[in-house]
């Protein structure tokens, strides 16, 4: 071998060392990163690592009150499912309910009490402590109470039931204030009124969809969000396919096809606001065709003679044959059931409409029996009737403006978002010296607060719920914490109880925390039960209720003999609906509807709900305006064209979606988007149609008639790409969704 020269040798050494280094680093770079194995300092008793633990609780995402089962792993909730033992949800759950985990883990949750520093609404807050925060408000409350000015305190809460509602009630009572209101945008106030007037019932009846054979729904999107969608879905499915040889038929009457309309066997687009007229037209046919044979038949015949088919057909836009056909089937297919709500209840004649719908149930004999309206016994813990109507909110705003309100406590309700701009509620809030919000999120109302005392989410706190409407027998469920609090927040009940201690309300609210309060409340329920010979101890009872996640009594109420007095019959009438503004200029009726995922806007900060394609349009992450294809053609717009929707009270713009199942004189918009605040997923996305609603009210209840706004559409010439998941919307004869004709019975 040739002699190695020095230079070559150095080269080799160099190359070799570079190679070794590179090889070493290569090996290092493909190594697994170091992972840790973190033990618990003290082993938890409730769960063991690697094994899922289930907790039963109650869903608080909407007022339906479904029972839920939460699967947790290593102490962290992973998924929420329905509680199979709970009669409302029966192991099932809607998308919004399942998104509860996103409320818990929302990155935009408020983590600590906040004190406003800058101007109101400027969004400048500094963290503070609970002691400081509570002391600040407690002092104000004490001063007001001691000076007999307690009524200057106002408490505005989301709709709550059970013992929490009771705590609120006593708290405000002790402070000496009557200004305690529950505010939910979608609260079916007119429905309560209609039931009260016709049947004298305080509580909503149970709609037994499950056993009905013919269902007539006037505007109620009972599968989407109306009252108890999960329970209704179960009921409808059972009525169709749960009984051998019998398939319930279902007709939906509404101006824009909702989720329920899509499920219906027949969808009829009556003119908006004339649903009551249509119902009375059907009633007329039922009576005149002799389907109704009650003793007060003549009274009805006389009363209903004002609603002959021709008139009804002319005014509703539903032809006379259809009216006769529907009426005959409704009366003859027993049991049948008529329900009304949603948009039909949100007209200026909403109560009339819903009464007219109930008249149908009366005439067809659907009261009290299976497959009809079942009257609920009073719940074990009755909730106060505290739901604020639009008129109440206007009054509140007026009082605030007049300086009569000094402290406003807001609990997880968002009136700034959910009231029309015409109410000028936001401006009124500016006149209130101290606004305290108990919200878990920085929503539009909380952004105006002076002090934010963030409360737990429902998955972290104690509570209970007695669903309304019930399921025909007394049901209750306890909501228990399924996870230890993630942040420095407190349960709403605990905040109020803590406040009452600081203010010195003493004996009326003796509990240290909500858990104690609940236990005492449920002790009473247990004692009532024990009188019936149920002799288990309270602790056993309590544990069993927690474990089962539900408590019920087999106490069906005997069907009351409903006899409607002639006076009431005489009073039945439907006024013509009133719409804001002139039809010449504002040629469309705006039909805002609650979005399936976002509900009234509360779901807008949940990423899953933002990413849930709207069931009917498949649009995600935004707002849109639904137009009939004919309307769109007349306006010269197509999908994605941005139009200005102008009412006499404001205007918003959103892209057009061509919707094949909407009346040409109606434009529909989903509610839920258009948040200015409320976290990263909700902010600056879409528009809020509530803002442009006209302040029309149903006169007897003061409920906002939110289907009574007229609008005009002005194409802006802009175009955006509507973000949706659907490609083409027709089957093109490919037989993907196959149908089979039912053999008519």
């Amino acid at each position, binding site marked *: 071998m040739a002699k190695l020269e020095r230079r070559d040798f150095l080269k080799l050494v160099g190359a070799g060392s570079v190679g070794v280094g590179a090889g070493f680093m290569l090996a290092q770079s493909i190594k697994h990163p170091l992972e840790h194995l973190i033990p618990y300092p003290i082993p938890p008793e409730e769960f063991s690592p690697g094994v899922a633990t289930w907790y039963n609780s109650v869903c608080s995402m909407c007022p339906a009150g479904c029972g839920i089962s939460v699967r947790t*792993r*290593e102490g962290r*909730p*992973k*998924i929420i*499912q329905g509680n199979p033992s709970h009669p409302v949800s029966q*192991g*099932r*759950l*809607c*998308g919004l309910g*399942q998104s509860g*985990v*996103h409320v818990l*883990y*929302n*990155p935009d949750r408020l983590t600590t009490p906040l004190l406003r520093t800058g101007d109101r609404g400027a969004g400048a807050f500094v963290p503070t402590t609970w002691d400081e925060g509570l002391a600040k408000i407690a002092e104000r409350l004490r001063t007001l109470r001691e000076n007999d000015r307690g009524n200057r305190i106002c408490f505005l809460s989301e709709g709550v039931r059970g013992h929490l509602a009771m705590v609120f009630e006593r708290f405000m009572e002790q402070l000496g204030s009557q200004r305690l209101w529950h505010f939910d945008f979608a609260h079916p106030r007119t429905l309560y009124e209609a039931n009260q007037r016709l049947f004298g019932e305080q509580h909503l009846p149970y709609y037994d969809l499950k056993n009905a054979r013919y269902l007539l729904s006037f505007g109620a999107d009972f599968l989407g969000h109306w009252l108890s*969608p*999960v329970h209704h*879905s*179960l009921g409808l*499915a*059972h009525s169709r396919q749960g009984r051998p040889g019998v*398939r319930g*038929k279902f007709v939906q009457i509404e101006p824009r096809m909702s*989720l*329920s309309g*899509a*499920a219906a*066997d027949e969808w009829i*687009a009556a003119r908006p606001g004339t649903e009551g007229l249509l119902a009375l037209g059907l009633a007329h046919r039922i009576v005149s065709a002799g389907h109704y044979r009650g003793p007060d038949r003549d009274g009805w015949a006389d009363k209903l003679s004002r609603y002959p088919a021709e008139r009804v057909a002319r005014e509703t836009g539903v032809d006379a044959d*259809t009216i006769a056909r529907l009426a005959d089937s409704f009366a003859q297919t027993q049991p049948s059931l008529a329900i009304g709500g949603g948009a039909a209840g949100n007209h200026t004649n909403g109560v009339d409409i819903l009464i007219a719908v109930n008249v149908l149930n009366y005439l067809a004999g659907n009261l009290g029996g299976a497959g009809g309206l079942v009257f609920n016994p009073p719940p074990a813990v009755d909730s106060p009737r505290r739901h604020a109507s639009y008129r109440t909110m206007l009054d509140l705003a007026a009082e605030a403006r007049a300086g009569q309100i000094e402290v406003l406590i807001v609990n997880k309700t968002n009136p700034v978002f959910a009231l029309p701009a015409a109410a000028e509620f936001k401006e009124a809030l500016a006149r209130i010296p101290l606004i305290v919000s108990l919200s878990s999120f920085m929503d539009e109302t909380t952004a105006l607060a002076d002090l934010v005392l963030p409360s737990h989410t429902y998955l972290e706190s104690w509570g209970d719920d007695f669903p309304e409407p019930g399921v025909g027998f007394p049901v209750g469920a306890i909501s228990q914490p399924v996870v230890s609090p*993630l942040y420095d927040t407190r349960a709403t009940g605990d905040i109020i109880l803590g406040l009452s201690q600081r203010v010195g309300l003493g004996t009326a609210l003796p509990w240290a925390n909500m858990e104690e309060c609940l236990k005492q409340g449920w002790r009473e329920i247990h004692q009532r039960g024990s009188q019936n010979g149920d002799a288990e101890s309270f602790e056993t009872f309590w544990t069993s209720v927690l474990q089962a996640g539900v408590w019920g009594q087999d106490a069906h109420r005997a069907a009351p003999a409903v006899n409607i007095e002639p006076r009431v019959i005489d009073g039945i009438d439907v006024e013509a609906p009133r719409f804001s503004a002139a039809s010449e200029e504002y040629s469309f009726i705006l039909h805002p509807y609650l979005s399936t995922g976002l509900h009234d806007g509360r779901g807008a900060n949940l*990423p*899953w709900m933002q*990413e849930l*394609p709207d*069931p*009917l349009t*498949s649009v995600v*992450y935004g707002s849109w305006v639904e137009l009939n*294809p*004919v309307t769109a053609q007349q306006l010269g717009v197509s999908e994605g064209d941005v139009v200005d929707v102008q009412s006499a009270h404001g205007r918003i713009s959103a892209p057009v979606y061509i919707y*094949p*199942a909407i*009346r040409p004189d109606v434009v529909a918009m989903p509610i839920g988007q258009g948040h200015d605040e409320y976290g990263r997923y909700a902010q600056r996305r879409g528009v809020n149609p509530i803002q442009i609603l006209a302040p029309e009210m149903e006169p007897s209840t003061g409920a906002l008639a939110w289907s009574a706004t007229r609008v005009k559409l002005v194409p802006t010439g802009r175009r955006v*790409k509507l*973000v949706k*998941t*659907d490609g083409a*919307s*027709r089957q093109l004869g*490919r037989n*993907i*969704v*196959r*149908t089979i*004709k*039912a053999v*008519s019975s």
Partner: protein
Amino acid sequence: MKRDDERGMHEKWREYRRPGYYEELDYAWTMTIDLDRCTGCEACVTACKAENNLPIVGEKAFAQGREIQWMRIERYWEGEYPNARLRFIPMLCQHCEAAPCETVCPVTATYHNQDGLNAQIYNRCIGTRSCAVYCPYEVRYFNYNNHHWDPPLDQQLNPDVTVREKGVMEKCTFCIQRIRQAKDLAKDDGRRRVRDGEVQPACVQACPAEALVFGDRKDPASRVSASMNDPRAYRVLDELNTRPSVIYLKKVTTDAG
């Protein structure tokens, strides 16, 4: 019979190709979807996202058509106003017995297992995306990028399911983690087989209309067997001979009345 690993490749291939091979599965997991019950509420879609760590992709990805929905609802309009009708059909991996996707994957990242499931092995996938091309049901979703969960949303992630990385195909697994767990529990109890109803994929569990039924069609007493024998049963795109394990029950329409 010889053990699995003792048999040669040819022997195995011959067996796979024998008609009726799939009838001799351990289980034959099957789902029926009653279109007459389905209301299109999308509770199943959310349940699937929650159970299977589906990513939150964001608006931009949606606009680009890169959403991931193992379970999705398809909607088809029929007729025009006022007789317009909307038909929903939940679409998920059909777990075909003759799955086109299984033949095309060059690395066998997707294959048919002994439970009649069309398995997708994420860590084997190299991302050719050919399975998605071959799938006539378009239920295979590709991870175009790594996904991010804004903390603490990541705490919701199901530890029983892998979080998929970029470049990997994914799809409905019939909630294999739940099947696996049910089998584990059966073994803990000393049972040989899983009982009917013991396994409920997240979508089936959630469905408020009880439109979805899941079970083993080899068990003649199972709910799903009863459901399959409904005269309304059909398979979507039956003409392609993919022999899906998801069976739909026809939507019932009625005469006016």
